[in-house]
């Protein structure tokens, strides 16, 4: 039954599905994991870095992109589709600055991206974008924001979220560990993002890429050295936790 209804995406199936959109969501689930955390004065994006071939330049594979000085996004899914969406979003950020003389709010640019994605689910001869995006940033009034969009064109605000491969595992981890004290300081928020990614990423800090935006500052990509330091800190904390538990058991 499904086979007949996934050709032209403008057609609903008898039980109310848009199969092309659902297939796009499957494509997203194959992409590498990305996690976003909204702290108090910081927003963090972390992605799983796919291992590059030996001869490939690492710098050309960037999954975290700035849309404007105060907004950036990470995606999971088809990299080529993401490039188009990011280009359009960047142009819209500047157009908004020109016509309204104000930088975009995170919600506005998310809405723009989501509307763009929805348009591609409702026209002939086009397929939906195969990406989910995590859009983070600060509004003019200093409020941190995190939004997630998906191929169907819906968007929601989140306190913390993950997309891509094993997103479910990471989200469960975040639901357990996102507390007021875990985001109390900037450093803690960054460590929470790394901890969440370490759940699903093999071989530790080498395969993690991290970016942060602090209030009134632009996007900063953390260097691998900084990430390594934080990873060792986290592992030390884990060991100390394990030690304490052992002591409790033995006494």
């Amino acid at each position, binding site marked *: 039954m499904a086979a007949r209804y996934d050709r032209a995406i403008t057609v609903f199936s008898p039980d109310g599905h848009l199969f092309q959109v659902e297939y796009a969501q499957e494509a997203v689930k194959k992409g590498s994991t990305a996690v976003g955390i909204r702290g108090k004065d910081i927003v963090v994006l972390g992605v799983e870095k796919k291992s590059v071939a030996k001869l490939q330049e690492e710098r050309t594979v960037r999954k975290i992109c700035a849309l404007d000085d105060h907004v950036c996004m990470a995606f999971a899914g088809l990299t080529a589709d993401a490039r188009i969406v990011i280009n359009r979003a960047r142009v819209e950020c500047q157009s908004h600055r020109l016509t309204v003389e*104000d930088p975009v709010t995170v919600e506005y640019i998310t809405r723009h991206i989501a509307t763009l994605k929805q348009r591609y689910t409702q026209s002939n001869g086009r397929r939906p974008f195969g990406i989910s995006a995590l859009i983070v940033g600060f509004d003019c009034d200093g409020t941190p924001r995190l939004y997630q969009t998906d191929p169907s064109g819906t968007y929601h605000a989140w306190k913390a979220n993950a997309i891509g491969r094993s997103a479910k595992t990471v989200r469960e981890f975040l639901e357990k560990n996102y507390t007021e004290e875990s985001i109390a300081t900037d450093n803690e928020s960054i460590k929470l993002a790394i901890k969440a990614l370490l759940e699903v990423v093999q071989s530790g800090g080498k395969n993690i890429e991290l970016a942060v935006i602090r209030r009134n500052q632009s996007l900063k990509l953390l260097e691998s050295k900084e990430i390594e330091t934080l990873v060792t800190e986290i592992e030390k904390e884990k060991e100390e936790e394990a030690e304490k538990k052992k002591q409790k058991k033995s006494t």
Partner: protein
Amino acid sequence: MALANVLQSESVDFSNYGRKCRGFSSSLYETELGLESVGGDNLSFAVRTACSDGDGPERKIQFLHGTTTLAFKFQHGVIVAVDSRATAGAYIASQTVKKVIEINPYLLGTMAGGAADCSFWERLLARQCRVYELRNKERISVAAASKLLANMVYQYKGMGLSMGTMVCGWDKTGPGLYYVDSEGNRVCGDLFAVGSGSMYAYGIVDSGLKQKDLTVEEACDLGCRAIYQATYRDAYSGGQVNLYHVHSEGWNRVSQSDVLMLHQQYQAEKA
């Protein structure tokens, strides 16, 4: 009807110029909005220039904007003061024209130049502002509203629109005042006066704004006096002075004073 014919023959051939530029309406006496224009749609605040080289629609007609409108920012917001006279050549067509357009409860626009152009485009601006508010769940800023208007009319640059308006309001950055015209100018400022009586008004406001901290009453009085003085000397301004005050909660209409009453009042004060 007869009046329109009289006006058409005596002054510059206006109707053809207007007809050529009105892309969407063929009839001289109807507009798409269904408004009837009484006495010919040559009704405007423009002064007919007496240049008699009758070469037709190609010539650029220099509008003198027979009116006086002014607006200035002060500590407690923006004061907007306008006269209410409309002239068709040397004939006073009306003494009771509303030259302040209420775009929304916190934005005002003034009218100078062509009445139809001003009111049409500002109503269109009101629609855009409302859509912005609904989409973004917050009020539009004065900068953005004036930018929208300027961009709208810029597309018609050179096609004969005549509009010199001031967009006044209060947004989250405080009081806002922009001058926008059909030539494509859009400037931010603290004080603007537009129209044939503007020079007289500038004189009064410039000398009155010396003290930096005016109270609301002082500012209103200053605006009123400036328009009165302009109507005193400028033949194309008169009628009543309509005064508005824009503050953080929105705008409110302060007063409407007949110029002749003001004259008596000020004369009495002098004595």
